[in-house]
């Protein structure tokens, strides 16, 4: 068991933490305009619902778990290390923090488009072997 640190967590009542700062507010969406958005701006009464759809997931949610089902993930050590390296790599590319949860789902999504390679991996682990 690893992950959570031993001992006390941070002080929840520390002064430098405004209560609402931990959840992104909706005004962060300004950086996320998409081309379609300008096309539909003439219809003011439907704008808010449309806008909702066009804001990328990362900015729309309250936290990384929003809109996701929780799936426990068990990784072999070398996979975990490779995942950590990939996280660092993406953080360099985007020059911002990348959420591990986002990375994991992205890896799963891409993996789903590459079932042949996934098959190779499963075969390495012994799938398809028969012992007659």
């Amino acid at each position, binding site marked *: 068991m690893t992950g959570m640190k031993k001992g*006390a967590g941070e002080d929840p009542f520390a002064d430098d933490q405004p209560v609402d700062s931990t959840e992104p507010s909706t005004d962060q969406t300004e950086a996320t305009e998409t081309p379609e958005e300008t096309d539909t701006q003439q219809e003011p009464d439907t704008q808010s619902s449309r806008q909702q759809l066009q804001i990328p997931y990362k900015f729309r949610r309250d936290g990384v778990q929003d809109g996701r089902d929780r799936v426990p993930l068990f990784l072999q050590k070398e996979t975990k290390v490779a995942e950590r390296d990939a996280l660092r790599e993406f953080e360099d590319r985007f020059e911002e923090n990348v959420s591990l949860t986002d990375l994991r789902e992205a890896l799963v999504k891409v993996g789903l488009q590459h079932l042949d390679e996934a098959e190779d991996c499963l075969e390495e682990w012994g799938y398809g072997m028969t012992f007659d």
Partner: protein
Amino acid sequence: MLTYSTYSEAGGVGKTTTAANLAVAHARAGLKPLVVPLDPQDGDLSRLFGVDEQRTDSVDNLVRHMIRRPNGGFTDLIRTVEGVDIVPEHNMLSDLAEFLQREKDQAEAMGEAFGMHAQLLRVLREAGVPEKYDVLICDPPATEGPHLYNAIHATRSLVIPVEPSAKGRAAVEGLEALVAGFEEQLNIDVGVLAAVPTGFKNTRDQRTILDEIDYPIPEIISERASLMEGCWMEQCSAFEYVRDHRSRRRDYELETLAQFDRLARHLEAEVGIEAPNPPEPGDVDHEVLTV
């Protein structure tokens, strides 16, 4: 201030009795604890301390404060039992998620931000809890949701009762995944003050499971079904039960009380708090003089 949530994903491992007895142990030593239980179901900490009689009435309660619609002051919510201040649970907790979501939608329509998981922290902060109390204990339900999230957000530290069984082990592993996700989601730092094995019968399997727990285990609480059931029956802590409801004192039960005392001292020491009047561990007749 010492703040923690008692949490375990598995039910029936003694989460609520651990929270209740630790709260009394802190109070016995002269500290002022506030307990905020958040269980939407009956049979909860308020029930254990006998302060749940208004949970179905339309009285002011914590949920109203969390959605910024209080019907009175925060201090009016508080009941004091065995030196412990408690915010009793109320049936509105069953619909907490819905209430919070509605308030959030409303706030966002007005262009405000409303952190659904930070509301308990806000209420406690606005009520001056850190200035008035030495210890804050939250007792959230075992299920994932806004009750648990608000509790962890308001305390940031955990005390994990663990049943030393395969089920208990799975629960601790599940908790790892849950809290890691929560840390990331809300960008807070959560620590584990202690794992508290309960119902220990000292079998080899149990010892193996305990060896695998990577958190500090200051005390291992043995199986004390009769003592704990007695507490529920008489609606009091184990300390009061042994003092007032046992016709004779049993050494093994006194030892369990001593463990709660020592565990409380351990948790206090973890954040640098020194209790002003700590009892000899397990001394049921110890009294705290309050002004």
